[in-house]
């Protein structure tokens, strides 16, 4: 979890750029992209170094996408596979929208965390592994032996192993290497990738200025860290025979880089929301941490409730009183909010609910990625509870969708669920600097007298939409109720009234659907294979499709932002492809599993919805690895599907 008090990005400074000392003459290759991981035991700061390196790359004009490498425990034992903590940074001279496949370079503070990355299939033959050589001389013989054995194994696996005196060098500047190695390593990476060291220094300065402010000895800390950075950098210039340059993307607009939870926090500010009501839960909480650090400056208030039920209840109260709120949670929290979401639908209470999905079911994989809550978002409530469900596919969308969701919630008078996931939540990426728009903010709360004769649910018969009286408005008095009710919000048991209420609530969704446009197709408008996705997999799917297209396969992709209602025109789009398949990070049976056939197969969640809605025979390829899908994995799966198709033709 990133410290909310120390966002990864420092403000721009205009200090003069100091020219670094040139090192030995190395071959500098210009390449279009690289994937770097930096991993350590938890507490050794690889996450910070990774975040800073990501920022430096972004600053250098590269497109970046980072993925946090998070151990399960808070302080796992040192030198353990499961304890690997750090960051993966993919940066390139293009827009970068997924984590990529195998790492090109891994910087590891010990050999065991490397195994954590191997388990995660993060490395492959050719990966440059930069590792601290300190273990060679470790006091404990077992550790020495383990290290040597690991190194042999690494060679066997085809990694390009480079031992480097990370700790030894760090000790030249600080007594506690645990708190310095990361900066040295950052310097090393800056050298390897020909980054502007002054950018890095600015980042480091800003980072520790904030951090040190709390602990109160800013200058000394900054000084030490800068020394470490420079030392690593110079070591690198000297050490590497081959170095790399990744040209900047020719961006047209100014950009920002942040993680998805920060984007949600900023979206909340931008949407004019005043109340965020929450109960802590991984991986959603850090969004509220960001918010907590600054929301008060806009007069906003965060309520940490006694549980998730109270959190949404409080939000609903605030909404009834005229202040459309946000509540941010993850799967188990959504489960607990089920009943209140039903009430919000029934009584037509605007509300923004963010579900930062994690691995399920139950407690599942709390820190890991999954897209498993789609059906629960749509169908979790007993009874018919139509609502709007949308899914962000990028960090920029995390920001913008909160704004959109508040507007939809208020104009349709219903809860809107925004789905994101652990991948977006903790990964960083760049997107265009949002240009503030007055229209984003909610209008000030209306306290003028309510129009006489207008009932509190004066449903427009065509659209189901009605305006709501807010306490304080003279003449608007009514009793909101979760019981079936008529236009006047009077409890009613008559058949017709029940049917009408249901119809009006459903109609709002249909009316809203009529305002949506068909989704854009990525690739050709027709072809052999259409890949359908939703949520954070967008960049991955599109990269896989790009690779197929590079091989002249007729593949395209389409990505859905709205899941309820769905964007129109899907059936028509699907009809133009020989095969349609969803790629999702949730569970589906495979067709060759025992007992499984097409009729009883449990499909991926989006596939189930699309099959029902379009009757197109949509296949699915889904996996639940607890981590983002690599584009290569998707590519491989799609290639197999194409091969089968060709075999059959």
């Amino acid at each position, binding site marked *: 979890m990133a410290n909310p008090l120390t*966002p*990864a*990005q420092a*403000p*721009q400074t205009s200090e003069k750029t100091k020219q670094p000392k040139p090192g030995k003459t190395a071959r500098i290759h210009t390449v279009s992209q690289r994937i770097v991981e930096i991993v350590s035991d938890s507490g050794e700061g690889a996450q910070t170094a990774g975040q800073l390196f990501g*920022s430096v790359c*972004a*600053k250098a004009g590269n497109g970046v996408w980072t993925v946090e490498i998070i151990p399960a425990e808070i302080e796992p034992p040192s030198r353990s596979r499961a304890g690997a903590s750090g960051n993966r940074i993919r940066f390139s001279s293009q827009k970068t929208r997924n984590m990529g496949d195998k790492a090109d370079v891994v910087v590891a503070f010990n050999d065991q965390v490397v195994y954590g990355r191997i388990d995660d299939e993060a490395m492959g033959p050719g990966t440059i592994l930069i590792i601290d050589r300190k273990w060679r001389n470790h006091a404990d013989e077992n550790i020495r032996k383990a290290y040597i054995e690991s190194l042999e194994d690494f060679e066997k696996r085809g990694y390009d192993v480079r031992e480097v005196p990370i700790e030894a060098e760090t000790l030249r500047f600080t007594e506690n290497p645990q708190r310095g190695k990361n900066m040295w390593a950052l310097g090393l990476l800056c050298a390897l990738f020909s980054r502007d060291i002054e950018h890095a220094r600015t980042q480091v300065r800003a980072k520790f200025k904030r951090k040190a402010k709390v602990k109160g000895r800013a200058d000394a800390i900054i000084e030490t860290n800068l020394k470490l950075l420079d030392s690593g950098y110079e070591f690198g210039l000297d050490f590497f025979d081959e170095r790399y340059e990744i040209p900047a993307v020719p961006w047209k607009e100014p*950009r*920002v*880089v*942040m993680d998805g939870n*920060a984007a949600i926090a900023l979206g909340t*500010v*931008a949407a*004019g929301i*005043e*109340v965020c*009501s929450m109960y802590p839960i991984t991986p959603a909480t850090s969004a509220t941490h960001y918010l907590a650090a600054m*929301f*008060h*400056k*806009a*007069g*906003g*208030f965060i*309520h940490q*409730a*006694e*549980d998730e*039920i*109270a*959190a949404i*209840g*409080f939000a*609903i*109260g*605030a*909404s*009834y*009183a*005229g*202040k459309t709120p946000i509540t941010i949670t993850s799967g188990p929290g959504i489960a607990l909010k089920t009943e*209140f979401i039903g009430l919000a639908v029934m*009584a037509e209470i605007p509300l923004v609910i963010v579900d930062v999905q994690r691995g399920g079911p139950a407690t599942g994989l709390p820190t890991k990625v999954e897209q498993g809550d789609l059906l629960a978002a749509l169908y979790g409530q007993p009874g018919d509870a139509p609502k709007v469900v949308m899914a962000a596919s990028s960090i920029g969308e995390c920001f913008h969708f909160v704004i959109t969701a508040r507007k939809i919630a208020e104009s349709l008078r219903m809860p809107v669920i925004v789905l994101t996931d652990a991948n977006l939540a903790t990964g960083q990426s760049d997107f265009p*600097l949002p240009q503030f728009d007055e229209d984003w*903010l909610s209008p000030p709360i209306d306290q003028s007298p309510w129009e006489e004769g207008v009932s509190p649910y004066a449903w427009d018969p065509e659209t189901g939409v009605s305006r709501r009286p807010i*306490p*304080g*408005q*003279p003449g*608007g*008095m009514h*009793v*909101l*109720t*979760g*019981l079936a009710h008529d236009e006047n919000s*009077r*409890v009613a048991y008559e058949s017709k009234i029940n049917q009408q209420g249901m119809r009006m609530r459903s109609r709002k969704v249909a009316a809203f659907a009529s305002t949506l446009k068909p989704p854009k197709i990525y690739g050709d408008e027709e072809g052999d294979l259409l890949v359908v996705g939703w949520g954070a997999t967008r960049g991955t799917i599109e990269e896989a499709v790009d690779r197929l297209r590079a091989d002249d396969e007729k593949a395209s992709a389409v990505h859905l932002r709205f899941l309820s209602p769905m964007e129109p025109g899907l059936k028509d789009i699907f009809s133009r492809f020989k095969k349609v398949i969803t790629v999702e990070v949730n569970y589906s049976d495979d067709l060759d599993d025992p007992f499984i056939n097409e009729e009883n197969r449990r499909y991926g969640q989006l596939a189930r919805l699309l099959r029902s809605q379009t009757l197109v025979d949509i296949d699915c390829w889904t996996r639940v690895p607890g981590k983002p899908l690599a584009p290569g994995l998707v590519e491989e799966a799609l290639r197999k599907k194409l091969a089968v198709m060709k075999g059959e033709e």
Partner: protein
Amino acid sequence: MYGLKLDWMETPEAPYYTLEDYTGPEARWCPGCGDFAVLTAAQRLCRDEQLAPEKTVFVSGIGCSSRFPHYMKTYGFHGLHGRALPVACGIRARRPDLNIFVATGDGDCCSIGSAHWIHAVRYNMRMVVMMFDNNVYGLTKNQTSPTSPEGLRTYTHPRGAPIEGMDPLQVSLAVRGVSFIAQTVDFNPQHLLATLTAAYHHPGFAFVRILQRCPHYTPRAFAPLQENPSMMSLLVHPDGIDGGESMTRLFPNRIEHDPSDLRGARVIAEAEQGIPVGLLYKNDSVPRYDHASASGLSATREDRVKLLEQQLDWFRI
């Protein structure tokens, strides 16, 4: 009350609200149900205090007693079983201007809602909570509630409730942040009104347990008290609830109790000297969470835009 409201002192524009202005559709409780008395008291309170109906919200959960808001002509929120308090807290969060009342039952508050109850006491957000305690689940037709006395026969415990009922007063008094705890009975309209009035004026979370008759399912729960008022003890004190001389006379037993004395309140809650009726505890200086929650209300759009831009700038590359 009784013409004491000096109409001529009001500005000509300010309307004078009559009982009518608070009276919603005909209430649908069983004949003899104690809820009627509370409804009347609440309507009187609103009239006496001249609460603008549009500035007044009655929030409830689910239960017979939670039908309450429907019978008022103010704003109302009839939500989910057990969840009145989070909703009321959310309403209060950014609306210091509203008058907020909560109607909740012994099942609604002390069973399914008990987490929210405990925490609402902690938060001490300004509102009046009327906890209708009829010792039973009325709306679902006769099941044991947490306040049902041991041995009470209900449909879920036809051979008698297996454990003692809990004491909502004692539990509330144990929560740090507690600032107003009172007990009253539906069958003494004067005390009831006086109690709700005191609760209304309390600057914080005012929890009032109302011993409420349910002739349908627990006809004998409070009949002994009605028949024999000496089973109750009226709490008297200059800082307590003053229902007037005529009301006081109805209670043969009185206990002098200073409502600022928390320890004393806990002893009284044990009811060794009779069921207490009156103000057990009151402390006006307990910090209020609604002060924290409303602290940003004066922020401007400019503040927000500035924050947004400052933050975006921070993340800019």
